[in-house]
């Protein structure tokens, strides 16, 4: 295990930038965001959680597929390759780390590998970061309900724990261990650091978020049973603006659109994030649209995460990070919807 003083975080950032592109939290006008670091001084670990999830590291909100020129033969179109440079994703909370494994299942499902997601995953080393157990838990979080705790290292290559003014860094995978070994700015951690680290992992289990006993098969069946309970879905969606904010901040929402952009005679076909909360998401060329009503779209979102995903992939597509609840302009809370659904 290694360590560094938190005040020397920019030195660590600079060393990591020599190993690849560094994606780390920076403070912006409104909250913290993961950004590709140009100035190592900007890296700021003094955050609760980022506003947007880190899914953009593997599934950027815009991903170019093909570039072409209008009027030129189709054979001249150029597929866009992912930059093969290694990436370091630094400072990811345990619930968000878990979201990557859930997304892996989908993007690799049914024998069709999404080349962009998979390539970016392979190129990336993940530095997980335990929640600060001395700070109060945010009321929106409920990751305990999804089996994640505040200091779970699972899924990280390197796991980081704050100890007073120090940052402890533990190699979890061979890839993480190797990278740590190369970083001269780090010093070896002592016995008491090792002890503190182990204790923190344990204490993380007592750091309580909201908790609801969610058996994935029970909730999946329940939602199936109340699919046609329009009264329920109308009530829970009565305030919904269908703005889609919840889906964009979500670490597990993966819906995308594929569209062409042809400004100035140059063409790009790319995928962009899309959301099942938008009316035209399911609008067909015939004019038929199976989800014209807000309640149908919110029902789709909740069912997708807690029922359809369980049936298809055997896992709930939510990690309880609380972002959708924090970002909702009308305070819709998916945790409360699940809680109410279980009572119906």
């Amino acid at each position, binding site marked *: 295990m290694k360590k560094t003083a938190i005040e020397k975080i920019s030195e660590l950032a600079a060393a990591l930038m020599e190993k690849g592109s560094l994606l780390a939290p920076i403070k912006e006008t409104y909250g913290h965001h993961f950004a590709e670091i140009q100035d190592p001084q900007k890296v700021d670990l003094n955050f609760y959680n980022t506003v947007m999830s880190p899914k953009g590291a593997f599934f950027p909100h815009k991903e170019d597929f093909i570039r072409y020129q209008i009027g030129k033969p189709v054979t001249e179109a150029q*597929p866009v390759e992912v930059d093969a440079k290694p990436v370091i994703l630094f400072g990811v909370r345990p619930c968000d780390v878990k979201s990557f494994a859930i997304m892996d299942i989908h993007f690799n499902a049914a024998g069709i590998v999404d080349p962009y997601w998979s390539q970016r995953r392979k190129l990336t080393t993940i530095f997980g970061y335990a929640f600060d157990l001395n700070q109060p838990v945010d009321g929106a979080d409920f990751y305990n309900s999804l089996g994640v705790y505040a200091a779970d290292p699972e899924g990280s290559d390197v796991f980081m724990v704050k100890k007073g003014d120090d940052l402890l860094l533990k190699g979890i995978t061979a890839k993480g261990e190797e990278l740590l070994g190369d970083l001269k700015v780090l010093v070896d951690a002592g016995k008491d650091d090792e002890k503190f680290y182990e204790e923190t992992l344990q204490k993380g289990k007592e750091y309580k978020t909201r908790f609801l006993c969610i058996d994935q098969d029970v909730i999946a069946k329940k939602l199936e049973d109340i699919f046609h309970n329009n009264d329920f879905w109308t009530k829970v969606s009565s305030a919904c603006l269908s703005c889609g904010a919840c889906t964009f901040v979500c670490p597990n929402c993966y819906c995308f659109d594929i569209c062409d952009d042809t400004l100035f005679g140059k063409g790009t076909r790319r995928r962009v994030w899309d959301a*099942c909360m938008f009316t035209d998401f399911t609008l067909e060329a015939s004019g038929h649209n199976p989800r014209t009503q807000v309640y149908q779209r919110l029902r789709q979102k909740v069912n997708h995460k807690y029922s359809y995903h369980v049936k298809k992939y055997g896992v709930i597509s939510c990690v309880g990070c609380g972002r959708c609840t924090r970002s909702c302009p009308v305070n819709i809370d998916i945790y409360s919807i699940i809680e109410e659904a279980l009572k119906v």
Partner: protein
Amino acid sequence: MSNNNPYIPMPVQIAKITNEVDTNDIKTFRLVFLNREDEEKFQYMPGQFAELSIYGKGESPIGIASSPTDPGYVEFTVQRAGAIVPGLVTAALHNMDEGAQIGLRGPLGNSWPIDFLEKKNVVVVGGGFAFTTLRSLINYMLYKDNRKRFGEITVIYGARTPGLLLYKEELAAWEKRDDIKTIITVDKGNETWKGREGFVPAVCKEVAPSPNNAVAVICGPPIMIKFTLPVFFELGFSKENILTSLEMRMKCGIGKCGRCNVGSQYVCKDGPVFSLAQLDQLPRDF
């Protein structure tokens, strides 16, 4: 990465365009591959679809209308969209001439379950424009090496007017064959129409295909489906033995973009072909 990148279309050329209907808004495009390896890779079965891709406009998922027993090309019958929703791709396609080059991604989705249909009597029921992948299936079953694998083949196909019937020459050829029973109907005929008049559900009732060792394959507009299904239930067809093909808005075509789900199933990947028994397991969200 691009060799196995499922989002990159293959280049194809429009070899032939057939205007199918007197309203001029449905055309069949015969596409040939520019690269031999793409043609070899494009191994499809009736019932599958592909994304037609036009750079600068986008992509449209369209059912494959030709049969794999006709090698060397792939055909798509495309309606120009735009009455309600602007149809950028289909409009651009309809404005193209033979020789133009576009992109093709596929084949996509499951197919009509040939193994399941084998040794059975197959009743094909189609309405209007939704006859394209049924035509693929019929031509596949009629292919000389395949015909003996199937029992009796009955086709009931209807359109609103005689001018809206697709594949008119093929329909006439099938009517002359004795190894397929072809019943063509129109809602309303005209002065030159000598054939049958009547809605598809009523004609199905009159023809009354036997449910014994039989499977019904039904595609058509929702209103036709709605009134045709009860006829087949009454005839004694079980839900396992009635197949249809669903449509939902699609983008990726490979079960990734999250758009076309009905319950836990992605229509583009798990479908588009489902039995009514399978659809009963899904929420009515389409």
